[in-house]
């Protein structure tokens, strides 16, 4: 065990040794080490969040043909710190009639729900908070707190726009949770485990994105909806309800929501990497070659993971800044009438094929082709449906009253 191939354990052993050297009980030393570990993870996540503020602003600027922050630091890299200072010194307003405790707790829970997830994110084969065998479920559970924070913020603000925004957001999150969970079950089924580390390892040979491209698509769509980002950003539709559930928040409280959202998006980018792109590994067996054995180094793996996550995050941003907003009823109908059934059929198909094809040589190609086939069928059905609807619309179209000719 050296620092290079197992840094976390080495440090924690070392710390524990120090504490026990101070005369602490083994139990207590363990607890304190763990608490330090928790803080490290939180700090790491927060540091990423700060970095993300810069990334987001820079990328959106490029999408919108602007330069973005470029004054403070090289490439405006220190802009986030300036932002933080600004947020902190702003007046902290709690509106009249707000439910103070809940109002103040909501942003904390919002950020906490994201940071909770980081406990299970496998940054590398040896760098992770905890490897639990129900990690996939843990993600969903942590997401539940996100929902909670939204409704708390919306309700306690004593503002109708906030409440409407919260309702929309919660409706979206609860609805899209279903296809998302189902999409998460697909890698679970293929890997045969819910542990994120195991899922990552299972993709050393082939990424699940190739085994289940449709699952990936489902996951991306429902993840974006879960994040409440455009095109699913009904919760903060500026033109309708001003800013949604966080309308009344100012200063650092808003900052927490903002950081939480960015970090959440990045985290989902990370999950895309973990579930479908091999996580920290997934070099298609390359790391087994002696020349590439350095790929198994935890630090390299961490860098690989973060790059993959950033790419995922970039895709989410890309969609956010190029799509218009969808109407709320369309969005819920899209979920319940299309995405959810699709997800369930896909799940059953995957489960079945996984069992049937596993012993054969056509596993990869079979899964891939079946996904394509399924997608094709769905598109055909959609096409015929829309044709019918168009025909129906034309048939029942109200004749337009033309202005009378004089």
């Amino acid at each position, binding site marked *: 065990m050296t620092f290079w191939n197992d840094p976390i354990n080495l440090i924690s052993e070392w710390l524990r040794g120090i504490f026990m050297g101070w005369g602490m009980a083994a*139990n207590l030393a363990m*607890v304190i080490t763990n608490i330090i570990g928790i803080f490290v993870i939180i700090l790491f996540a927060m540091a990423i969040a700060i970095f993300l503020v810069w990334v987001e602003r820079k990328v959106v600027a490029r999408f919108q043909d602007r330069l973005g922050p470029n004054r403070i630091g090289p490439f405006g890299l220190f802009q986030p710190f300036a932002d933080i200072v600004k947020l902190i010194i702003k007046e902290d307003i709690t509106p009249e009639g707000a*439910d103070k405790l*809940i109002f103040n707790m909501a942003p904390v829970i919002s950020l906490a729900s994201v940071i909770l997830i980081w406990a299970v994110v496998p940054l590398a084969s040896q760098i992770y908070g905890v490897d*639990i*065998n*129900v990690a996939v*479920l*843990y993600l*969903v*559970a942590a*997401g*539940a*707190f996100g*929902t*909670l924070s939204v*409704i*708390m913020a919306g*309700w306690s603000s004593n503002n109708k726009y906030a*409440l409407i925004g919260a*309702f929309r957001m*919660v409706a979206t999150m*609860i609805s899209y*949770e279903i296809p998302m969970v189902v999409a998460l079950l697909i890698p679970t089924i293929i890997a045969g485990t819910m542990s994120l580390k195991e899922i990552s390892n299972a993709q050393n040979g082939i990424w699940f994105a190739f085994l289940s491209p449709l699952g990936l698509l489902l996951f991306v769509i429902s993840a974006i909806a879960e994040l409440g980002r455009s095109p699913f950003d009904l919760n903060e539709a500026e033109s309708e309800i001003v800013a949604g559930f966080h309308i009344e928040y100012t200063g650092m409280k808003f900052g927490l929501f903002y950081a939480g959202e960015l970090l959440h998006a990045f985290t989902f980018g990370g999950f895309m990497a973990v579930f479908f792109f091999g996580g920290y590994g997934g070099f298609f067996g390359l790391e087994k070659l002696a020349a590439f054995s350095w790929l198994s180094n935890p630090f390299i793996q961490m860098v690989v993971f973060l790059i993959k996550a950033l790419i995922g995050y970039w895709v989410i941003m890309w969609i956010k800044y190029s799509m218009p907003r969808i109407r709320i009823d369309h969005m819920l109908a899209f979920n319940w009438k299309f995405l959810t059934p699709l997800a369930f059929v896909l799940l059953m198909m995957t489960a079945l094929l996984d069992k049937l094809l596993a012993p054969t040589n056509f596993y990869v190609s079979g899964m891939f082709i079946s996904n394509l086939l399924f997608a094709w069928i769905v598109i055909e059905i959609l096409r015929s449906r829309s044709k019918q609807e168009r025909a129906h619309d034309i048939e029942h179209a109200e004749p337009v009253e033309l202005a009378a000719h004089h």
Partner: protein
Amino acid sequence: MTPDQVIFILCAAVIVVTAIMVVTSPNLIHAALWLIATLFGVAILYALLQAGFLALVQVVIYIGAIAILFIFAVMLTRREMRDKGPQLNKNWALAAILAVLTFGGLFYILSGWSGFSGKAAEIPAGMDTLRNLGFALVSPDAYLLPFEVASILLLAALIGAIYIASASKK
């Protein structure tokens, strides 16, 4: 006192206090939020009992779905929230006595039971209770039928809830 016991006592305190807040809080939204705290405490208890799966299911289902549903229901019937009067009915004192009696009775009966202060065995190494649970739920020799019946129940509840709550067409 071991860390386990500390955690348990903290949890138990949270559970009991928040549960009391649930049943006494005059504001229903607060009650629902307190309920969430209670349920979270219970989830930690499950984790303490080494039933990690149940702990997470508890969070997903209770906090993610049931509690949110409660908050929705309270908001949809929000005229009641403006009732600043007492949220307890007239015989709350009798109810309190009954509740205390129930607790006392349960305690009395339990304390007479031989296994009352039993200790838990260590979970044998290599036993994956999650795997066991999964197999139990889908094995015809175990609980496949109850599991399926539960799914039917949920379906029926889903349809029933939609039907009951949908606005009556006149």
